[in-house]
């Protein structure tokens, strides 16, 4: 392995297995003054981008009627953990089409899990 991948390896993080279309809860560390608390941010993963230390994912939610999208770097130290709430079944890698939709039309079909 070359030196650059060795260095990147040291910063990589495993946030668990989640994919595009999944509803996730991201626990974000928020620093206020000298206090730190954890704030959950729940929404749908509408895309993943990049690789190595540059990898990031985009989470969209509707907050008080306003669409909010946040991009989180996977190796960001401000993410405490990520919980998967629901597995989504989608046919696209980027779910930008849900931006123009509201209510039921913006719903993502849940993945059927076979046991």
């Amino acid at each position, binding site marked *: 392995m070359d030196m650059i991948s060795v260095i990147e390896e040291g910063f990589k993080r495993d946030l668990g297995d989640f994919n595009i279309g999944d509803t996730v809860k991201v626990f974000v560390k928020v620093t206020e003054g000298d206090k730190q608390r954890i704030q959950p941010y729940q929404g749908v993963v509408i895309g993943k981008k990049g690789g190595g*230390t540059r990898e990031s994912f985009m989470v969209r939610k509707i907050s008080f009627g306003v669409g909010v999208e946040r991009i989180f770097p996977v190796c960001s*130290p401000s993410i405490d953990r990520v919980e998967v709430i629901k597995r989504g079944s989608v046919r696209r890698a980027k779910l930008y089409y849900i931006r123009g939709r509201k209510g039921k039309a913006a719903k993502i079909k849940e993945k059927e899990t076979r046991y």
Partner: protein
Amino acid sequence: MTEILGKKLGMTQVIGEDGKMCPVTVVAAGPCCVIQVKTRENDGYEAIKVGFSEIKKVKNVNKPMTGVFSKANSKPYRILREFHMSDLKTGEMITVERFSKGDIVTVSGISKGKGFQGVMKRHNYAGGPGSHGSMFNRAPGSIGASSYPSRVWKNKGMPGHMGSERVTVKNLKIIDVRAEQNVLLILGAVPGAKGTYLEIRKEK
């Protein structure tokens, strides 16, 4: 002054101490072996000659250079430079441990070659409009006045060869020192392509 020779390995992103992403250049720096110590009595000035990038095959070293290295009792090296550093003896090694996190360094190296370039790329001339029937697109325009001076001023920017020259970048911060791997992580970009040999200096 603390100096070291290095080789640019490429760039990546790492997470800094404040949790922000930092663009860094990865440089394999040192260890540099002191080949010769020049003194005011012998050579007229004080300096040390160091070698970097070991030559593995001894047959690739020519006879005059073999003499230089055998005199210092060292391995043969590809790059030889003179540094203004004191209190070092022949055979001593300069390693990245002389640098620490947060140091401000100056980096010199040979920039990427751009070939024969026009004035817009080489000297940042504005050029002309791209459309509306303009036939003056990337040309330099007038290169001087007529009766006075009746010649072109010296240093007038003209098309020509660009790049492949020594470039120095100052005020670069060291983000991390990996002593066991002989690697420096320098914030931002440094001159040259991957594999360029660099001089890294720290004022003290």
